[in-house]
């Protein structure tokens, strides 16, 4: 029995697959950004506490970042199920025990991020907070590892017949040579994005203080350190990216190397943008770096999308999915999204314009928690 025999039949779509692909890529980019801040930020935060014996400024935003990363994970998870459900559900069941464990791990990581903030001040409270920060970071890394496994396993249907030897949902994609390079690529990328976000946060805070004529708050060198860490992690990404590419199936690598014009353009753009990131970050140009980062993330997500399409191409094509058109639901979503975006904009504006009153220190750790 071959793995291809096991692939479940597809279902029909309500709108053409292209709509779902666009929605998937767009929402995944947003999730990636927040996930990077939450995951990378948690690791950096734990490292900072261990090294400098104090909490990094801005760390109070981490629980909010985790909440938003989870929230923004919902739409891409939804759209991936619509397009690739027969692969995704199968791989999820094959690793079900680990996959379901993601939920308690996330809950613990989230509560640990709150506990980490402790009651501040006292050495004992700080030590406990550092332990919680480590717990939170490690748990989030475990969640990321589970995700990388599922996203790999769903492409490796050749491995699926292993189910019959053990149905308890304990399969992982450990035999995939691309697994660890892929995980490292995501983890180090998360560190890079979290670093520059830290710098961005400090810059934003300074600008707001200046506009209000206040003194600049201590940021522990976040502006410069953040940018420096960003280019260091980005530089480390280069060999990891090459390693990942090298471990991908030959046919997939071929697409990037000229086998497909689209793939070759994506790879060239990716390399160009990465070089641009490095050059500007090393020269300390924050704004230019941040501006290049956005299209870089989009190109990376499109490359990932192509890797998936290539891996599944012998057995699946999203374009071939049957469509029984119903556009009403899409209109419902898009119009709600437009209204929701306006409400969010109003909320965020209200938060940024909130008066900086002295009463804000209600529970010690909440001074930086504005809006998330």
């Amino acid at each position: 029995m071959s793995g291809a025999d096991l692939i479940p039949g597809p279902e029909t779509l309500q709108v053409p697959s292209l709509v779902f692909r666009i929605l998937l890529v767009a929402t995944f980019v947003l999730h990636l950004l927040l996930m990077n801040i939450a995951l990378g930020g948690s690791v950096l935060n734990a490292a900072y506490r261990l090294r400098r014996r104090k909490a990094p400024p801005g760390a109070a935003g981490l629980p909010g970042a985790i909440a938003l990363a989870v929230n923004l994970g919902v739409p891409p998870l939804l759209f991936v199920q619509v397009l690739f459900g027969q692969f995704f559900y199968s791989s999820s069941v094959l690793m079900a025990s680990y996959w379901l464990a993601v939920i308690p791990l996330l809950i613990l990581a989230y509560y640990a991020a709150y506990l980490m903030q402790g009651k501040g001040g006292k050495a004992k409270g700080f030590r406990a907070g550092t332990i919680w920060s480590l717990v939170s970071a490690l748990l989030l890394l475990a969640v990321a590892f589970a995700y990388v496994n599922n996203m790999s396993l769903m492409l490796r249907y050749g491995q699926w017949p292993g189910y019959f030897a053990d149905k308890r949902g304990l399969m992982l994609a450990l035999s995939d040579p691309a697994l660890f390079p892929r995980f490292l690529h995501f983890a180090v990328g998360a560190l890079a994005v979290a670093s520059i976000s830290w710098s961005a946060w400090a810059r934003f805070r300074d600008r707001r203080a200046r506009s209000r004529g206040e003194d600049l708050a201590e940021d522990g060198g976040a502006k410069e350190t953040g940018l420096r860490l960003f280019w260091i992690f980005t530089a480390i990404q280069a060999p990891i990216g090459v390693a990942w590419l090298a471990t991908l199936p030959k046919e997939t690598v071929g697409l990037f190397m000229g086998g497909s014009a689209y793939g070759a353009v994506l790879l060239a753009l990716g390399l160009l943008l990465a070089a641009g990131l490095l050059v500007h970050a090393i020269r300390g140009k924050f704004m230019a770096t941040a501006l290049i980062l956005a299209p870089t993330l989009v190109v990376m997500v499109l490359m990932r999308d192509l890797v998936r399409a290539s891996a599944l191409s012998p057995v699946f094509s999203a374009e071939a999915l049957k469509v029984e058109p119903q556009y009403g639901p899409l209109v419902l979503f898009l119009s709600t999204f437009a209204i929701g975006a306006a409400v969010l904009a109003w909320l965020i504006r209200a938060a940024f314009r909130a008066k900086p009153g002295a009463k804000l220190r209600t529970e010690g750790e909440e001074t930086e928690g504005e809006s998330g």
Partner: protein
Amino acid sequence: MNYPTWVIPGIDGGLVIAFVSIIHVYIAHFAVGGGIFLAVTETIARRRKDEALLASAKSFTRFFLLLTMVAGGMTGVGIWFAISLVQSAGTSALIHQFVFSWATEWVFFIVEIVALLVYHYLWDRLDARKHLAVGWIYAAAAWLSLALIDGILSFMLTPGRWLETGSFWDGLFNPGYLPSLAFRTAAALMIAGLFGLVAALRTREAGLRRFLARWAAAWIVLPMLLLLVSGLWYFASSEAELKGRLFQGFWFIGGYRTALFALSALLFAGGLALLIRLPGALSPATAGLLIAVGLGWMGSFEFLRELARKPWVIRGYMYSSSVLAKDLRRIDETGWLAEARWARKFSKPEAGEDMLASQCLPCHTVGGRRDLEKLAAPFDVHSMIEQLESQGDSGYMPPFAGNAEDKEILANYIVRAVAKKGDVDAGSAATEAEPGEEEKEGEAPERH
């Protein structure tokens, strides 16, 4: 049959879903009712310029945020994980039908999160009017997310015209939609009252504590009247078959039905006592007890709803064995093994094991709840085949999907390998049952 089945020794899929979902559903209803509770309480406090009440509401917000956003939000994603692992085919059908319903609900979800963060962290820094507006935005977004999810939940029990039209709107606004929404809204308000007792407990000043205890108790008692009315409406609007199922129905439903009524009475009495006679008697123990009773109440309701739906995942459309109603006759003719993807067709004991996983283990276990080892003990292969043939008549088990050969393979496997009556080596057991007819790998029949 289209998807693999996750087999956890001794635990059935329903229990996995129940564990995650009852906790989630309870907290999620609190997230809806609590938002309204907070907005109303703040509105009153602002109107009366009652600083102490305002401080209580603020302190309650932190508790509310930590419980609903962390445990509530995460277990919400958790239900999604759980159902896709336990009922992949059912989840896939729901996702493909309601993807934009869920996507729309996500918009409300993110508005909820941002609004709640702003509401909590900027309590003292936003001007009063704006802060209150943020509270109402949260309450509205939370209720709207319930209004969307309610469409999917009620659809599974009463898909109505959707069965003929396949229209998204017919599915969303199904016959059970409105009564279910009214019922869940009332439940959300009642649960807000139960947790509202915590706000009273966190208040030291005796007068305010007494007021808050009464206030929370009113939120328990008054919505229960709406619960009663909407419950009757829900029941009256159900088809006769569903009604019969709940009241003349099966012994295992009766227990949850009695529990739901008894716990409702307990909650009403507790709320009423606090409201009229004993607000001063509120203690962490009484509040904890009432909150626990509330959890039991929610659990009974959800179990009752699940059991009323048996043997379907989506009533009239997909059985709990993931077989579509429209495919049943075809599968009976061509054979389950010929159609199933996740089955080893080359060896009968293995085919039996895979058929068991797909057709039986969604509800049964070996060694746990609805234990097949015990249930199959009185049967021999012949009577087990009869049982498989007639199980669909029971009303709570889906019909067996497959032809005579499938039944024989499964009956052999259950009786000999599961109930351990006969040679435990399932290989020889099946060979005895049907000697010399084992298919070889690669000779599996063509799929359709």
